[in-house]
């Protein structure tokens, strides 16, 4: 066992320690001369830097670029160190800084500039937005352009860019100069709703088509009309309210879908609501006829922007007085036949309510039914209404009838 421990111990001891490095010394007689350097090139060219290095050492060149530094080793020919930087590393336009060093000692620094390759313009980066604006000349879409060369470098400042703008059936050409590599232009809407199409070109290179929708501006006051089958308050037919073609302040038809609120004020002070959204500027609202005679004043609103004239319409009562029949013991109540404005049986579904009060006028129960074939039936069964005197109130289509009845036993039973 001791043997193993010894071996293990040795292993552990020997495995510790530091590798000894001897730093290479910088020779004292080191001197450098720049033989050949480049100041400016066009993207796509190579750069060759030559130095005369005395001292028998091999320098390295550090090239700073936006993606990070690059290291280059020279081709040595006696004391002449030649660095050739391939074009692929310096396609991006801008200033490149280089440093020549030997063993961390800085020998020379310098820079060269890469210019965009103007003659090989291949495209224009464009952005156009917002995609929709309002008519009227206050609102605009911004066109932003960056013409680029084959290496995606923005072209030098002062490059002329021409903008074609198609609006209102005509094409306008605007020119602009790039600055800091780009150019932008605010393109304003006109008073007409529609579509603005633009494209740009420079050095015979053309961008794609871009578009911005010009939507109508704020609407202006409008008119409404109504349409109904008859003027009876039968609670069954539909009144249709319609606006005329709603326009904006420049005469454009408002966008489809614009919501119009129809506010209906009844003579009793309540406000009914219907709404419609426009198609080709026309909005339609529907509502049922009232069930009792009333006068309506209708106003339509595009809230905050526009409103209509007041349309007034009145409804006559559709139902005359109605008959009420009681059975012998007064327990079955037959309301009707209820007749309409031309003595027809009222359409099914007219609401009839029966309120039962005891002889002291205390409310007991309320029952409702809908008319069927003009008739409504109520059954006041003995198990719920013991024999006594009652007051009953019948209401239909706004007409109220009151009766004093004595409920008695069903003789048949």
């Amino acid at each position, binding site marked *: 066992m001791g043997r193993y421990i010894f071996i293990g111990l040795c292993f552990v001891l020997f495995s510790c320690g530091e590798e000894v490095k001897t730093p290479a010394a910088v020779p004292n007689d080191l001197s450098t001369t720049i033989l050949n350097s480049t100041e400016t090139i066009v993207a796509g060219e190579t750069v060759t830097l030559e130095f005369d290095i005395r001292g028998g050492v091999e320098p390295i060149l550090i090239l700073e670029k936006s993606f990070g530094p690059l290291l280059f080793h020279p081709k040595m020919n006696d004391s002449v160190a030649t660095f050739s930087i391939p074009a692929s590393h310096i396609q991006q336009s801008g200033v490149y800084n280089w440093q020549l060093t030997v063993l961390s000692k800085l020998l020379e620094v310098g820079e060269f500039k890469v210019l965009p390759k103007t003659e090989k313009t291949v495209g224009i980066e464009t*952005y156009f*937005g*917002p*995609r*929709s604006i*309002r008519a009227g000349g*206050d*609102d605009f879409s911004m066109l932003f352009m960056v013409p680029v060369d084959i290496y995606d470098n923005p072209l030098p400042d002062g490059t002329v860019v021409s903008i074609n703008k198609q609006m209102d059936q005509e094409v306008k050409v605007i020119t602009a100069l790039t600055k800091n590599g780009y150019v932008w232009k605010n393109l304003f809407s006109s008073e007409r709703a529609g579509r603005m199409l633009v494209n740009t070109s420079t050095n015979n290179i053309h961008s794609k088509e*871009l578009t911005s929708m010009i*939507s*109508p501006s*704020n*609407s202006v006051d409008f008119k409404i009309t109504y349409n109904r089958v008859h003027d009876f308050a039968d609670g*069954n*037919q*539909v009144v249709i309210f319609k606006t005329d073609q709603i326009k904006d302040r420049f005469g454009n038809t*408002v*966008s*489809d*879908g*614009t*919501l119009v609120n129809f*506010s209906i004020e*009844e003579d009793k*002070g*309540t*406000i*009914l*609501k*219907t*709404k*419609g*959204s*426009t*198609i080709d500027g026309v909005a339609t*609202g*529907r*509502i*049922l006829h*009232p*069930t009792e005679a009333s006068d309506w004043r209708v*106003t339509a*609103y*595009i*809230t*905050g*922007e*526009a*409103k209509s004239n007041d349309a007034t319409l009145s409804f006559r009562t559709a139902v005359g007085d109605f008959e009420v029949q009681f059975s012998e013991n007064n327990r079955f109540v037959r309301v009707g036949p209820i007749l309409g404005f031309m003595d027809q049986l009222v*359409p*099914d*579904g007219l609401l009839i309510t029966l309120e039962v009060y005891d002889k002291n006028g205390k409310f007991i129960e309320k029952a*409702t*039914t*809908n*008319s*069927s074939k003009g008739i409504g039936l109520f059954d006041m*069964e003995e*198990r*719920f209404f013991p024999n006594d005197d009652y007051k009953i109130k019948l209401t239909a289509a706004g007409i109220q009838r009151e009766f004093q009845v004595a409920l008695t036993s069903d003789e048949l039973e």
Partner: protein
Amino acid sequence: MMKGTNVLLVVALFVGVAFHGSSIFFTLESTYDALIHLFFADHYANSWFEPWDYRWYTGFTVQGYPPLVHQLIGILSYIGGLKFGLFTVGMLAILLYVTGAYRFGLLMSGDKKVAGYTAILAVFSSTFIETLHIFGQLPSISALSILLHSMTEIYLWLKTGKRRYFFTSLSLIAVTVTSHHVTPIFGMVFFIFPLIGMVVMDVSRDKVDSYQNLTFKVFWQSFRQLFWRIVSFGFFSLILIVTCILPYWINSKKNPITQVPIPHGSRDNFLEVTSSGLVFFMIPWGILLFVLPYIFYRFYSKRFLFFGLSMTMLTILGTGGTTPIPLKLLGETAFNILTLDRFTLWATIMALPIFGEFAYRMVEGDIKQKIQNKFGSVYHRILGGFLAGGILFMVIFTMSLGYFRPSQPQKINMLPIVNFLNQDQHDRWRYLPLGFGDQMAWLSAQTKAMTVDGNYHSARRLPELTTRAIERLENSKFRGVEGIGSLQQFLTVPEKYNLKYIFSNDKFYDPLLYFCGWQRLQQLENGIMVWEKLNVPPMPAILPKDDVPKWSKIMWGTIPILTVLIAFFINIQMLWIRVLKSRKIPIADYFKYKVSYSKFPGVVIVVNHIWALIVLVCLGFGFYTFYMHNASQRSPENVITAYYNALDFKEFETAHSFLDKEKEVPIAQYMLEVSVTDGILSSYAKLDAMSIEITNETDNGAKAVVETDWVTPLERVHRTYYHDLVKRKGDWFIQPSYLDTDIPPDQLFSDNATKFYNHGRRRITTQQTHHEDVLKQPVLEVLSAKLVRYNGQYSVIGELQNVDNLPADVVIKATLYNDDDKELANYDAKYHMKHKLMPMETTSFKINFEGIAWSQTKDTIPPTFNPDEFTPIELEEQPTKFNLQCAGNVANTDLYKGLTLQSLDIEDCEVVGELYNSGIQEVTIPLLLASYYDEEKKLVWVDHKFVQEGVRVQRKQPFSYDFLNVASLKIINSSLKNCFVNGLPNTSIAEKVIPNRQEGHVGEQLQPVNGDGFEFVKFELNSYIGNPK
């Protein structure tokens, strides 16, 4: 002693594998737990050593559950996929269980015949069938089976002291620990302790001539003799329990289960909740119930005394909340965390050898003789037939339970959902399945996309989930207020969780989604509706996680499988010899303690007969009360209850049968009327509570006032119904209410509407959407906004208009600040607004600041539930300022504006009117928004009311609304300074888009009312359409 292979064991294995092995393909996937284990397995298959899984609960650690079974499925999934792994492990569990039961039987009885009977009965044990085929608790079954295997080894170690058995027993304990954490811990108490007692008993028995001479003194001596073996075993198994799943213990310590307990049926009072009694008591015990006296008679013999005690404990603990004893024994915390059905499971498994012994003695032993002598052989045969029939009945009944009362929704084809999530970078947002049941785990296993939900509730992390007793958001409707309330929080503020997509398999949730501002995106091929919320940012690239040290990850990834390998190599030799009989092995020690089965005491037979009679009478009484409960027309109350239950379950034919036959409404007519009524109550509600008051009862008539409480996804609805009842020929009937005979004016009519279509991406690309295809956000304008205090609660109210020319989907978020600009709370607008606005449409809105429910007062969770229950946020300081962020996005759905307000009648504090549907879509749930204005026509309050019936096309629907008293309302701040629209200040928009705004328009459309604290109101309508056409 039998030489050669035990035929009974072979039969048991053969039948067991054939029966269970083939039926798991039809049952396992629809069990409660199996798919959860599958999800965990998928996690290990994809990232073995990384315990963090982002896919559930905004990230959770799988170190919260012992990994062995999951890892095994994971490994096997490399061969044939996850389900292959699942079924293979299932088969393994079956094999282990049957052999485990055999060895346990052998150990207990020392008789191979009895052990063989035990194995066969184990195959048909209803508790095993339930655990495997209904609950799908694979880890629990595996762990228990291995525990049974280990018992023989432990016995032999304690008895003989041979070191080999020490290692075999520990190796099996280690496997048990890594497959399930609860089993070894409680197994120690309930299985190993009695086993130790039995060993000591056996050793003592060796010292004396008979059990009569076995005194406590002898027992004590033997105990001292074995003391060090027991201690060494106990000590090392404790070490194994701790170290094998050390990361699990550390995780439990770090993230203690602080959540509100989730109700579990096994804690119910089984007499009150009979369904729980059936599932957690009747089924597991099954036929064993009839032979309980025999079981206890045998367990309380001297050798099994400790098993008897353990058995008694388990039986009592398994009764859940039926008696107060389990709660007292376990304490509040343990009682609420543990599911008590496992005690019953252990009890029934423990009883198997005794049952096997009983079967043996009944079929070919002394009981048979005794009965034959006493009652004749015919009776013996009848009794045997009864028992065999009972076993078969329980097997078939248990197996069919999942068929007749499925615990899961129909099997969902996940492929379309998986494809949807993979498309178009949809998995950069979280999703939420609704109504998937436990199948959500299977969906999660198939996709990388993440959900806020999850299916392992101990791992829940968000306080929104842990403070409420819900298992999953997915089935929140079954958890009442807590469920729906939690879900509402997620749906209202989805951007907090980057939740953008919802897969809805249950239309119950649809209204809630709609009114929280979600929109339908598309219906997938499998019928699942995808809902989408606009303006939700995608998830950040880097998500937070709770990292654990590397050693913990390595332990977790290696130890479980190592325990299996080690156990395999240690035990394989013995197994090999036993199976192939290649070498003669000495007879194990426990064979010595075989009792001779002769002279069965007659008194036990009598007692057992009496007991069986009692059980039968109890069962009969149960059936009788069940029948009486269903005798629906015996009293007015019964008929009303039955009628509403029938309506609740949409059994319209049954409901119709309770209507008065003399006022005959034909069933066809009735069905027609019921089927055409739509609305929140008829389509989206569940009857929660009902109270019936019978008035004016006479001999043949009565009036009933029925107070009903309905749970809907939106709010709790209270409704009072009045019914007239008649008694005819002894049965009570309900008189049908009057029918609405209203007919719409037009048979056919036309409607024009503007429709919108958004291409999404016009350019087909895998990249982000091209900037040209990104629509401009519609411009909104905040017309007014106020911070108000009403009834002690802060709200931000206001009005907003879509001033763009495009329809907009609107999201509003408000943040409250105090005087020192300290943020106090933020929340989104829920359903107090119209989320979809046409151009130039206005909406009022209200934002309530909701806290996380009951996070402060845990003990005051209300007993009944209300989804609308609102927990106001606890603000530390007085809010004085607010910030409003509104965002518009182009909307092209849910733009129906056909609802109109018609024939209003305004009383002092109430408005009665009708809604009329003038368009061509059927409105399922109308929402009425009421805005209150003061005498200067300035907004002071916003309120809402869901109208409970839908409005069909060209029809009227009456409604009524009670005005609130807002005199006590206080306006704190009404500055529009901090209102922003699409990130831009509201003021600049107001000046630019509608420079000449007609301020008076809003005021002119208001309804004058003489109210408390207000002079005008405005009504707005929002309509949910259940089935857009």
